[in-house]
């Protein structure tokens, strides 16, 4: 019976060839647009996410600030500072931290030979490599021993290398930072454009052990802490956990957001998430709209088919078919026709995604192919098929067997 239904659906298509071709085009195009548009939306989202995250995935930054909620003028309020003990306290007691590194920074006078530049110099711990997600082009990264013995070693970014050294190999060369000699032990791979903030250009920085920078600057302060929760959902829990620990240690109110200043990339991205959710929904509606136009075509074709087959319907009713049999038959036929277009559309959509993804160029978002999107496309097409079938099936079920059998 199912084989017969499928055969009948195909027969309907062949008896209305031109119409069927047009209708099929609508369904194919609609299904393909679901895959293409949603894939492209998700692709754009990923591209933005990756760009934002080049500064390091899901990072949370904590700065020591200045006491807020106070009656004194802003510049007379107590400055808050963190030291190694505060860093260790957070490292030991915060339960949601995957990695944490202290960080110091200064704009220092860096010199190689006769070339001098003002450079963003950061004092860091070895785990910063995981936090920032950087890789080495040459040499090695800063080790725990480098930090422990306050070694004067440096890892430099690609842009910093070009400005100071030109095309020369960097590892093994000596720099002076504020007059002190440092040896270059590693060269980072290029990180590239960051979408988050133009201040944090990793490629322009020179990294040294946090302790070495403390010695250079003559204090034992930790300017900020860079950390990451195990999971993105732990963002808020981590923020309040860290704020509570530090507020107690530096004697400020846990609600003082100026004293312990927290910025989370995850919050930043969540804002974008909302935008992309809206955009993806819009694109999906657009695609489903296209699909529905195809659905209307299928519906019309089936309505005509019902009219042409009144006698057949009457006969089936006469030989014992119930209304539900007739309804089922026309629903399934409509669905078969729609799904034929749907399958072609899925293939066409996947092909277009692949083709678009192959176009070179940095800032064109590449459509991504996800199983969920394919499922979404098939589900949408099926729904459109069922909805398009309701009208014709209802009309078929209302055929009066007595009348229709004597149509000629």
């Amino acid at each position, binding site marked *: 019976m199912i084989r017969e239904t499928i055969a009948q659906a195909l027969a309907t298509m062949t008896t209305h060839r031109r119409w069927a071709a047009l209708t099929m085009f609508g369904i194919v195009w609609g299904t393909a647009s679901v895959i293409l548009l949603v894939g492209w939306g998700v692709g754009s989202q990923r591209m933005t996410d990756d760009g934002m995250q080049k500064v390091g995935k899901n990072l949370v930054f904590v700065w020591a600030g200045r006491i807020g909620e106070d009656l004194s003028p802003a510049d007379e309020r107590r400055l808050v500072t963190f030291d190694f003990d505060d860093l260790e306290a957070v490292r030991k007691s915060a339960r949601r931290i995957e990695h944490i590194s202290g960080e110091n920074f200064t704009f220092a006078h860096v010199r190689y030979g006769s070339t001098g530049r003002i450079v963003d110099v950061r004092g860091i711990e070895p785990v910063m490599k995981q936090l920032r997600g950087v890789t080495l082009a040459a040499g090695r990264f800063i080790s725990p021993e480098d930090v422990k013995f306050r070694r004067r070693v440096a890892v430099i970014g690609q842009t910093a290398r070009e400005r100071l050294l030109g095309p020369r190999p960097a590892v093994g060369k000596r720099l002076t930072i504020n007059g002190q000699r440092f040896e270059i032990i590693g060269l980072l791979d290029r990180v590239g454009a960051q979408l988050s903030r133009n201040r944090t250009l990793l490629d322009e920085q020179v990294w040294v052990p946090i302790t070495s920078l403390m010695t250079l600057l003559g204090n034992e302060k930790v300017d900020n802490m860079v950390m990451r929760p195990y999971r993105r959902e732990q963002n808020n829990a981590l923020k309040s956990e860290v704020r509570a620990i530090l507020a107690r240690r530096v004697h400020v109110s846990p609600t003082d957001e100026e004293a312990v200043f927290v910025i989370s990339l995850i919050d930043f991205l969540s804002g974008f998430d909302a935008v992309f959710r809206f955009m993806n929904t819009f694109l999906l509606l657009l695609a489903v709209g296209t699909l529905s136009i195809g659905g209307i075509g299928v519906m019309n074709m089936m309505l005509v088919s019902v009219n042409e087959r009144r006698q057949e319907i009457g006969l*089936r009713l006469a*030989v014992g*078919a119930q209304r539900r049999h007739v309804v089922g038959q026309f629903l399934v036929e409509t669905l078969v026709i729609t799904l034929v277009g749907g399958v072609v559309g899925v293939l066409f959509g996947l092909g277009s995604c692949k083709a678009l993804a192959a176009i070179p160029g940095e800032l064109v978002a590449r459509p991504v192919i996800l199983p969920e999107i394919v499922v979404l496309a098939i589900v949408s097409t099926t729904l459109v098929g069922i909805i398009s079938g309701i009208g014709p099936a209802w009309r078929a079920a209302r055929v009066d067997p007595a009348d229709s059998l004597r149509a000629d």
Partner: protein
Amino acid sequence: MGDSEVRALDGIDLDIGPGEYVGVVGPSGSGKTTLMDIIGCLSRPTTGSYEFESRPVHQIDDVDLAVLRGEQIGFVFQTFNLLPRLKAVENVELPMLYRRVSRRERRERAMELLRRVGLANRADHRPAELSGGERQRVAIARALVNRPSVILADEPTGALDTNTGDAIMDLIEQLNGEGQTVVVVTHDPRIAGRVRRLLRLRDGVVESDVKREAP
């Protein structure tokens, strides 16, 4: 005041027994078709009652009526009403599709009936490849496939030439000879001359109801 009610049938009081061979004749508009629709359970009388094997049809719901049609009534039409895309044997199987009959049993039973009407060798042909007489034989096989209580034929020879028509009537009479109840609605005086009970309708009433012995 707009009393435009048309009574297709009026005051009909009729009883058809098992094994009868009944012809219904009458001019156009006499109510033949309406009578046939009611006998065949395709529609219910607006008022009055119709009982099929002691079941009051006017009280049966749509679903049960569909089942009753499928199981108890075999239709034969003037224009055969075969589905053009199906093979002869598949057309014969059609009434069994709506009952719980296994695929194998359907095929066996359909082939048995095609043999019965002399078309076993045409089972795989489609209606377009069959002659008019052959098509009507397929339709008769289809009508018989659920072992109905009554065969209801509406102008069964109307689209056939005289010889072929006679052969079809021979087949129908042969079935009647085996105890099958048959009701034929017709214009054809040749058929009217062959039935054993003839109902003449005029303006929705039975004008005459004549029974006669088999020749």
